[in-house]
């Protein structure tokens, strides 16, 4: 019988194999030890990631940030996306006020309310000045639970004949800080936009609960990571469901 840990591991292995086929060849990603070893290798390599995005945050409001993250990801061109995927869509979160930075720095996207702005993805050295001026975003507070909300994303983009869909965006809250949530949701959302799982005019129903529902069949994409105390014990932190239809 396949356990839920094995299912989670298979999903993580798939993500690694897509981004870095050579790692899939070096490690047996379907065993707990092999996956852990590959993830250690990825963490080590992330210290000198070649390509990364930078997200400058003045304020964090989950629906606003979800909308802006998708808008940013949709502006990433295909060639930049290739290198970024190889570095696992690495993104650095910095504390800063975009309004105060616009005269000195060019941003690829700025949230409508000015609460966040993005640079890159680009070679890390291109954001050195910005990173020196700002500090890492310290989101160590617990992620607050909110009532579920509907976020319409990429409303201003050309749908190119694709009909908008509605999905649920599940976000785990138990033991999750705001900083954790940013990391997990960022990977999930930008990869979903790059993969066109999320497209122009889609509606995301944001649902927060302590843990995500377990059934894998429901999900179009999941963000899975180890737990802080047990890196080899996998958990789903965020997920996008398949299309849903209102009754």
């Amino acid at each position, binding site marked *: 019988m396949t356990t839920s840990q094995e299912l989670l591991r298979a999903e993580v292995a798939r993500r690694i194999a897509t981004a870095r086929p050579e790692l899939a060849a070096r490690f047996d990603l379907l065993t707990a030890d092999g996956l852990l070893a590959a993830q250690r290798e990825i963490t080590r390599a992330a210290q000198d990631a070649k390509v990364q995005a930078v997200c400058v945050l003045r304020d964090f409001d989950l629906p606003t940030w979800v909308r802006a993250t998708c808008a940013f990801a949709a502006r990433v061109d295909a060639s930049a996306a290739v290198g970024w995927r190889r570095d696992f869509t690495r993104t650095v979160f910095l504390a800063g*006020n975009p309004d105060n930075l616009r005269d*000195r720095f060019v941003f690829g996207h700025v949230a409508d309310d000015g609460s966040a702005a993005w640079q890159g993805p680009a070679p890390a050295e291109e954001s050195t000045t910005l990173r020196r001026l700002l500090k890492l975003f310290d989101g*160590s*507070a617990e992620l607050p639970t909110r009532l579920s909300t509907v976020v319409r994303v990429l409303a201003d983009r050309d749908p190119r004949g694709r009909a908008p869909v509605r999905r649920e965006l599940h976000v785990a809250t138990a033991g999750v800080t*705001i900083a954790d949530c940013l990391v997990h949701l960022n990977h999930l959302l930008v990869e979903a936009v790059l993969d066109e799982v999320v497209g122009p005019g889609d509606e995301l129903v944001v649902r927060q609960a302590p843990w995500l529902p377990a059934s894998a069949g429901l999900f179009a994409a999941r963000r899975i990571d180890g737990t802080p105390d047990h890196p080899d014990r996998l958990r789903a932190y965020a997920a996008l469901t398949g299309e849903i239809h209102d009754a």
Partner: protein
Amino acid sequence: MTSATGTGGSTAGPAPARDQARLPRGAARRRVLLAPITVTPSKPLTPSHLKGLLWTDVMYRATARLAEVTYRYSPTTYHPTEQTLGFWEYLDRTAGETDYSGLTEEAIGELYVGYRAAGQRAGLAALRPYAEAVELHGWVHPASARVLELWTAHYARLGMHDPGLLAHQPPGLRLEEAIDRLGAVGMCLDQRAYGGPVFLDATRYGLPLRQIVDARGRPNYLACALRELIPLAPRFDETVLLYDRELEPDYLLLERTLSEFGATIRRVTLGRVPIDGQIRSARHGDWHDHTTGALLSRAAAEYDEPVLRLGMRLYFIAGLGQGQQQSFRHEALRQSLARAARLLSGTRTTDPAPLPEVLSRHRGDHLYVNPYRLTSGLLARHRPAPSDDLLSAVYL
């Protein structure tokens, strides 16, 4: 000299009428704020501290003959920093009920060295009663009250103006008010709601973010300075900030921030005084025979009070200069004292120029009088000796 007055610091009134008649046009009654960095009352005053205090004192007394000067030096403002509250909490936790009234600065300084060496940071809850007592009714821990009392005696002996060491001088704004005022001009990044700190944000000017309140709500000295100076500095024609060279980045930020509120800022950077070629923080406790008390006792054994006052100023201002190239040397201080004795013996002709004119020569394009230029001018051999007016107004 007037005594300390409430929140505004101590103010010297305008120069006497006969002096004002000779002031350069437009210079009369201009208002100047002197705001030096304060010394935490937890240890003896070292040569570095004494240098800063004597520079400020000469600047204050000289400028006060030309403009209306407020000397703002409020220990009250800086008590809420963790450095101070943590020391007080440590003392009560480790020594309990202790009578500090008979202790020397050195003995209290040793306790402070013990606190720093212990390296523990007290929790927020442990510091709260101390922070509240400071904010609500100006409470000062008896150990620091004792240090401030001893410093007051040093000030008196050195003829330094006491800007209110023992007075309750709360800052004009509460912490939240200061944060709101900064936010209103787009210079505050408050991320406490997300578990982060509060930053002073001058990134618009290319200056890096600087934390002023940590994620747990504890303010640092810069937050304290902002509470005091945001409401105060814009009320003056010129605000002079005197500080240690190591704090230059913070003071550049402070200048930028206060300018945003309409203040005109002048920064005066002072190098510390190395001991045997090394600049060391007082927290290590190796002050030995260099404390202000020790220097005063040694000098007083040989010289009377006027010589001591002038000689100390000659050495710490003209002798050591603004930088930090020269180490402290007892012998060099003795030479300055001897020099002071000769100056005061009055064998040379004195400068006939009126005092405001003499002082105005040392102002450059600002309102304050430059202590180094004024003091080194006393030593120039080809110039007439300083007048009694100048000596009594500024140096004795």
